[in-house]
């Protein structure tokens, strides 16, 4: 099945969704944060997640939430730890968690991404394209946490057409990639140039590869980060056709066989300049695109091992 759809271009662009690995330490930190700081406050709090390119075959890379995610990153990150800004809403009870309008919060996040694109903030900080959102209910009494994570992707009015896709090794030589990759930073930047330097290359799209750190591992589709990237190129720079470069790694080194180079076209969006426009968005983890969120199942974390009482029991 992996390559079943690979034949035949053009076709609609499909992407591999990113998945979140949240370690127990993160939820324990949230538990303590609720006890010590939040109380019953359920307004959104800023958190930080960490993004990496794919490093091991045949798995994708994951988005990590860690015990330090509740505090701002202490440095700019590195290749294994690209900090991404996100928000968390911790509700006070199960009912509040279940009754959250998930479509609405997703759209609100997408609106922020759209705003960052229009205002030019993304030019300076491409990581803003990868915003994420967490909703949770920390059941302190029972040492459980229920949560869902979303990676909002803007839904363009028109479909994105994938014109070609092939392993980077067929297009680039190893030397070229080594050169190219020395310029790839954090999560997304243009070939040989930072994204913000794009203007100097304007008018020369065909010789540009728009590269990004790709978490994905599939040969027939890029990782999900490309959607907001394309939205950015389309909305901010009015580009309608790009060649893109899904940069993947194997054990921290460029993986030409599994990196992808493709071409996609997308008609210009409309209505998006309207400041009141609320874009459609998808991105709840575990929810198929096009499906509603009604049936969404919360993930459940058991923090019983943090419970001093249960540890005492163990001793006896």
């Amino acid at each position, binding site marked *: *099945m992996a390559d079943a759809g690979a034949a035949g271009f053009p076709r609609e662009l499909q992407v591999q969704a990113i998945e*979140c690995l949240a370690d*127990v330490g993160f939820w324990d930190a949230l538990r303590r944060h609720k006890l010590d700081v939040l109380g019953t406050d359920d307004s959104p709090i800023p958190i930080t997640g960490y993004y990496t390119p794919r*490093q*091991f075959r045949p*798995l994708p*890379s994951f988005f990590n939430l860690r*015990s330090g995610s509740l505090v701002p990153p202490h440095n700019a990150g590195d290749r294994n730890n690209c900090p991404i800004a996100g928000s968390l809403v911790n509700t006070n009870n199960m009912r509040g968690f279940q009754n959250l309008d998930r479509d609405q919060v997703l759209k609100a996040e997408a609106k922020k991404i759209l705003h960052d694109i229009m205002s030019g903030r993304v030019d300076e900080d491409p990581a803003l394209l990868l915003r994420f959102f967490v909703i949770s209910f920390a059941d302190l009494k029972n040492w459980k946490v229920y949560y869902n994570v979303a990676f909002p992707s803007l839904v363009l009015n028109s479909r994105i057409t994938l014109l070609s896709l092939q392993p980077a090794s067929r297009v680039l030589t190893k030397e070229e990639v080594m050169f190219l990759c020395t310029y790839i930073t954090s999560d997304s930047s243009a070939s040989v140039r930072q994204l913000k330097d794009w203007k100097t290359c304007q008018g020369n799209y065909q010789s540009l590869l728009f590269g990004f750190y790709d978490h994905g591992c599939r040969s027939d589709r890029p990782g999900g980060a490309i959607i907001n990237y394309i939205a950015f190129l389309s909305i901010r720079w009015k580009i309608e056709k790009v060649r893109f470069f899904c940069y993947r790694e194997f*054990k921290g080194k460029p993986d030409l066989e599994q990196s992808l180079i493709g071409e996609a076209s997308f008609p210009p969006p409309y209505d998006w300049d309207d400041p009141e426009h609320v874009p459609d968005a998808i991105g709840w983890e575990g929810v198929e695109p096009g499906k509603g969120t009604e049936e969404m199942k919360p993930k459940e974390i058991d923090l019983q*091992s943090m419970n001093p009482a249960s540890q005492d029991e163990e001793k006896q």
Partner: protein
Amino acid sequence: MQVKQKVYELYKGTVERVTGPRTVSAFLEKGVLSVPEFILAGDNLVAKCPTWSWEAGDPSKRKPYLPADKQFLVTRNVPCLRRATSLEEEYDAAGAEVVLDDDGEGGWVATHGVQASKPDEEEDIPSMDTLDIGKSDGIKSIPTYFSGGKKEEDEEEDIPDMDTYEDTGDNMVATEPPYFVAEEPEDDNILRTRTYDVSITYDKYYQTPRVWLTGYDELRMPLKPELVFEDISQDHARKTVNIFPFILLILLTYQMECVDNFYHINSQYFNTGNVLIIELYDQNKRTIQCHRLVDHRVTIEDHPHLLAGKHASVHPCKHAAVMKKIVDVLVSRGVEPEVDKYLFIFLKFIASVIPTIEYDYTMDFDLGSTSS
């Protein structure tokens, strides 16, 4: 066992508090690392294997003798495609080929398979609470099957004869439940398998690195530490010493690039994992030495730099002894290993404990120049 463990932890913690960190190198003499050497070796690991990073850990658990931003090393999202048991069963099924070094002269002799008999031997290992770090021989109190007392003069004889092991009938592997292999569900074509965050801390008491495992299951949810044992070579997981028949040296299939005057180290860990065989190649690609080293125990404890959760850890009580042994072999061959390569050697033998967790360490490298 619980109480014993607690008492031990308390004791270890107290010793760590009242004694200063090691600052003088004893790498060659004892196989241990000083704090600056740990930083040096860690920097080298991060440079050579970019999937590894230094981390700060939780500020409240910061160790003052380590730099704030270099408290421990970690590599994340490491795939573990199948359970350790499956590796062992597969190896047994394939019929192990025994290849032994022919007296150091470069010949390889294949002998017999593995299925016929599986003699085990239970042997007392130095328990954690009897190890006395204060005595110089404490850290070297290694089981007799390492090499006995004649390692100095006769390395080649180091390999014990299979016949000396008695079959105790206590074969753990045979009773193991069926293993699981990662499967690709049809719907999304995404490989569902376990992943691990592997971290390396500095253990001040044993003065060695220490490996910690934080697992995630196929659904990307935290794995209970107990289930981590399924990914640990069964002998280690059981915390007993089951010596498997002495076997299991398979010639590596990849080509070894040998540079003049450099030796390469290589390890193989098949079947039980408690057998680590070090192959040293000289410049003519002849194997000049084989060794086996045995047993690490795995425990579940609090991570020294993370606040929450119990983590599985390969207990470091044997690490120095194993490292010392490897160092001795190298030195006896005129190679003085450089201390910044410590973690590469270390991770190789740790791979014998967790054979299916595919973390990165370079497969072959120069240990150092010959001392001559």
